[in-house]
């Protein structure tokens, strides 16, 4: 079996979860027998693990995709009121940024409330990623500037470099999920 196949099967195992251990073992055993085709085989197995997990946890998958859409909509609604209010009250720029970051916390909280900590943190990280993608794609559609612009000098997300801005957003989601998990309704991670 190739190193890539081994790596993909390890990923598939973590995506699939403990309920599917026997099936991942079965996939790995076949990959071992597949010879030169083991990488292709493992790619399919990884994809099967992802699809199976989404099918089993479609509510969580929907939440991961829809909560960032809700955050984007909320930020759009808040944009002008916050700017006008800030200008009127003479608030510094960082307060606007803080508002747009802080509004993400309750959405992470919702994920933390319904899932055990580890899964909530993973879900929050994925939601944060989806939110970043929404930002990049909507900027692309609106202004015709492709994703490469975020890697050019002078680009900013939340008034800082894109990497730092995305990291700030990620930390809001994770903090929300962590707070939420303290009030968790779900059983602990098995």
């Amino acid at each position, binding site marked *: 079996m190739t190193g890539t196949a081994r790596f993909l099967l390890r990923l598939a195992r973590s995506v699939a979860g403990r309920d599917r251990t026997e099936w991942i073992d*079965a996939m790995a055993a076949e990959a071992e027998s597949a010879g030169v085709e083991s990488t292709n085989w493992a790619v399919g197995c990884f994809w099967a693990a992802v699809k199976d997990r989404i099918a089993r946890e479609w509510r969580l998958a929907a939440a991961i995709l829809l909560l960032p859409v809700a955050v984007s909509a909320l930020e759009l609604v808040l944009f002008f009121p916050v700017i006008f209010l800030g200008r009127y009250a003479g608030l510094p720029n960082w307060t606007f940024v803080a508002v747009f970051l802080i509004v993400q916390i309750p959405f992470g909280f919702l994920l933390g409330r319904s899932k055990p900590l580890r899964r909530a943190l993973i879900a929050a990280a994925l939601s944060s990623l989806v939110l970043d993608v929404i930002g990049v794609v909507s900027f692309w559609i609106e202004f015709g500037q492709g994703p490469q612009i975020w890697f050019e000098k002078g680009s900013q997300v939340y008034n800082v470099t894109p990497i730092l801005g995305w990291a700030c957003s990620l930390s809001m989601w994770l903090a929300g999920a962590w707070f939420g998990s303290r009030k968790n309704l779900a059983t602990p991670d098995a």
Partner: protein
Amino acid sequence: MAKPRKLSSQTVAVLTALASRPTDWLYGLELAKLTKLKSGSLYLILIRISERGLLESRWLEPSGPGRPPRHAYRITAAGRKALADAASEFRPSFRELRI
């Protein structure tokens, strides 16, 4: 009573492959070759039909030293019945095609 879920054409292909050798235990690679399905589709189907009791699985001893045991599959009586039901559902449309 809940109506049994209709089988997809890919699921029928897997069950047909298993039913073609009803006493043999078939490996994932063999099934992929027989059905021309990729592992990404094949395992999802195997998991689903196993949960529905349409196939049984077991670990078979390795064929040689240094080889891992392999997971093998065989159709159950419920699987054969589901396949027969699926075939009878397809029959009217074949008749329509002939007209």
